[in-house]
């Protein structure tokens, strides 16, 4: 038995983590709270294991411990990590570095900046092979071409000559996967590889990883904060909190029958389920004159180099009508022109075509709760500033009453008026932004993804608030979102945008249940795979 070399023993577990404890001791040597606390788990050969937890749960540090990429001030207090039976923690740094790439591959979160901007992607990949001692130039080139076609590039020789900025986010993520798989490692660690990609690209990348896992017999450790991302992807899931394992089971069991209350909480928070909110939007009359009507609206970003115009046409003949008290959803994948359309409708961007507004008074709520309010001024100042155009016709008392009403409508008490945005939570700020719209009694509010950076419970509250305002003030709302559930729950009609045009427009029921355009079908398919 003793004579059999370690490599020949067949291991059930590719990686075995045993009692791993990790901390960041302060410079003064005081004992610090461990980031990983006696963590033990195994990664089985050939499986896709999901590692789920909120930020600070220690999931990334677990991955870095296995890869040997811990920050310099991290200290492993105790425990062992075994890779195919070999103890990783007792190895020399140079040996561990050699394992990276050849035994363990890694992909990170930000494909946008994970490639050297000055180097052709082919050269970047070649650097990896040179570092691992492959001296023959022709061999390097062949291996790179092979891996590039494996990750789905039809013309590897062209991609080889490209610079990172010439590629899309999805293409760059493919290059990174190619780099990680170049030396056929056994384990691939993916640290939130899809969190900055849109849903269509995410589905494509996950499909690719799944295929590679089978074809190249790779084991994958998949790290994510989003429990829904692991759904159709991982075989098994480990849920982490505060450096400990909360629960570990097959994906199906975790998602359908969570045993731990924390897992259940993660599951409910991950998805805002508007169906449970029982929203009742206002009845709208689609025979009345529209509050906003666009005919053949086009817009382009231009950049000029001393007389040479570079034109990037983003809107290409948009037709859109919004009727009084209607809540209209606007969906589309990233880059389809949603944000540009919002700017155009608000008059912040020049456009061609006709836009008829029933009144000049349009409210707006934007995506980012951090930058929606001016950090230098109080909430009171914000509301007064919103009333400025009407100040002449209003007495001091009128203004006071309007401010009180507005702040009450959005469910904040008067004590908030003297605070500054820095003292408010994201949800509260969005409420103030809504109050700034409501105070001027607009006929239309344009809400540009107002929920996307809020947690599920705040998002639900804001959604309820918008529905209430719609009902009580008979305001029409154009709701730009990427979440189809929100559209289903609150919108009466929905328009789908694709490549600067409205691909489909109609009642929710019709568009979402029997889509006609390819853009809608593709979008629904991706959403269903990820979130249904």
């Amino acid at each position, binding site marked *: 038995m003793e004579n059999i070399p370690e490599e020949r023993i067949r291991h059930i577990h590719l990686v075995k983590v045993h009692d791993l404890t990790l901390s960041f001791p302060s410079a003064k040597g005081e004992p610090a709270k461990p980031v990983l606390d006696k963590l033990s788990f195994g990664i089985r050969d050939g499986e896709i294991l999901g590692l789920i937890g909120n930020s600070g749960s220690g999931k990334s540090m677990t991955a870095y411990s296995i890869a040997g*990429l811990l920050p310099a001030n991290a200290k492993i207090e105790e425990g062992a990590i075994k890779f195919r039976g070999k103890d990783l923690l007792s190895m020399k740094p140079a040996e561990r570095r050699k394992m990276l790439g050849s035994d363990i*591959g890694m992909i*990170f979160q*930000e494909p946008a900046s994970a490639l050297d901007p000055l180097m052709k992607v082919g050269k970047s990949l070649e*650097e990896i092979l040179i570092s691992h001692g492959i001296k023959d130039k022709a061999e390097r080139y062949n291996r790179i071409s092979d891996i590039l076609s494996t990750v789905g590039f039809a013309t590897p020789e062209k991609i080889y000559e490209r610079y990172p*900025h010439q590629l899309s986010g999805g293409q760059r993520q493919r290059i990174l996967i190619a780099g990680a798989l170049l030396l056929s490692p056994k384990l691939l660690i993916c640290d939130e590889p899809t969190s900055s990609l849109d849903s269509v690209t995410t589905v494509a990348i996950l499909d690719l990883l799944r295929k590679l896992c089978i074809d190249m017999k790779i084991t994958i450790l998949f790290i994510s904060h989003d429990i829904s991302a692991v759904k159709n992807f991982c075989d098994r899931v480990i849920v982490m909190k505060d450096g400990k394992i909360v629960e570990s089971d097959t994906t199906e069991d975790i998602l359908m029958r969570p045993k731990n209350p924390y897992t259940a909480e993660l599951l409910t928070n991950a998805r805002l389920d508007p169906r449970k909110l029982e929203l009742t939007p206002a009845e709208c009359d689609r025979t009345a004159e529209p509050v906003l009507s666009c005919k053949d609206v086009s817009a382009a970003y231009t950049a000029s*180099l*001393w007389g040479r115009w570079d034109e990037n046409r983003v809107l290409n003949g948009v037709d859109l009508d919004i009727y009084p008290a209607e809540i209209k959803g606007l969906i589309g994948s990233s880059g389809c022109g949603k944000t540009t359309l919002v700017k155009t409708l608000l008059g912040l961007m020049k456009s061609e075509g006709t836009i008829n507004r029933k009144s000049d008074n349009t409210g707006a709520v934007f995506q980012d709760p951090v930058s929606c309010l001016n950090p230098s001024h109080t909430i009171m100042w914000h509301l007064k500033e919103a009333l400025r155009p009407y100040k002449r016709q209003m007495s001091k008392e009128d203004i006071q009453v309007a401010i009180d009403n507005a702040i009450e409508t959005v469910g904040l008490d008067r004590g908030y008026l003297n605070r500054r945005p820095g003292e408010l939570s994201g949800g509260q700020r969005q409420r103030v932004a809504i109050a700034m719209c409501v105070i001027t009694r607009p006929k239309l509010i344009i809400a540009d993804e107002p929920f996307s950076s809020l947690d599920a419970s705040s998002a639900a509250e804001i959604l309820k608030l918008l529905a209430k305002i719609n009902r009580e003030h008979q305001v029409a709302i154009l709701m730009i979102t990427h979440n189809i559930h929100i559209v289903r729950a609150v919108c009466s009609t929905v328009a789908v945008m694709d490549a600067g045009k409205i691909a489909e427009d109609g009642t929710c029921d019709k568009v979402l249940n029997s889509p006609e355009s390819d853009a809608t079908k593709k979008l629904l398919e991706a959403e269903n795979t990820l979130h249904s």
Partner: protein
Amino acid sequence: MGRQAGFIISKILELLATLFLVSLLTFVAFSVIPGDTAQVILGPDASQAQLDALRSELGLDRPMIVQYLSWLGGLFTFNLGKSAAFGTPVAGLIAERLPVTIGMSIIALIFVIVISYPLAILSARRPGKTLDQIFSVMGHILFAIPPFALSLIIITIASALFSGFRAGQYFAPSDNFGGFVGCLILPSFCIALPKIAMTFKYMRSSIIEQNSSEYVKNAKGHGLSDLRILVKHVLPNSNVSSITVISIVLSDILAGSLIVEQVFNLPGLGRLLLAGIARRDFPLLSGMVFYIAFITVLLYFAADILGSIADPRIRLK
């Protein structure tokens, strides 16, 4: 290719527009603001006949636009007329003083690059550690010392310590090239010190920034060694972003040499400038000011072009 050509053409147009504005500003500063140049040169006691004679000699009786165009033409043919104070052609006076200023700038730039780059690489290896802290504090202190004050202090201390020390020796490059370079070394070093601090600070933070970037993390994840990452990824990226800084440093060095050569009694452009100012020699001053600005504009232009060649994000689309 089309994009790079477009970029270079736009930069050349910008260069020409800037040069035009620079020449206009210089002309306005010396010919319009001070009032009657002839009066300024001859003083308040000059007779009307003397004034008229000088005016027609200098061409001051012509319309402004004609004066400007002829001055502009002179700039490009190196024919700027005679200096009012020295009585010899301005271009000759400038050419005579150029070696000292250029020599000092080159030596100072060598000091800056040779000293600041290695220190920055060393410092950025372990940011926040003792070595880095010492370098950084020293950098702040050096940055705060005006080069002329530093020169004065060094001369004061050196002459107190070594009785044989003499500042202010000068050898013409045609007579004794070694001596010429030798007498420029100390002044160049004094000009270079604050710029070493500036370049060090910039390079250090640039390397640290690159080190914490995603692509370095990614390269580490592929098993590349730290040295290889430094040489192949970090330094090229830092260099591209430091091109602009170097061009600013060089123009600062050029300006700094104008003052420091006064301390060391060196016959460079600074002395000529002061002589011109003292004698209100406007033909000389306007020529010098334009040419010095011209060199600066060219430096910035060169930095832009080099940057666009080195960075594919500008070069290609």
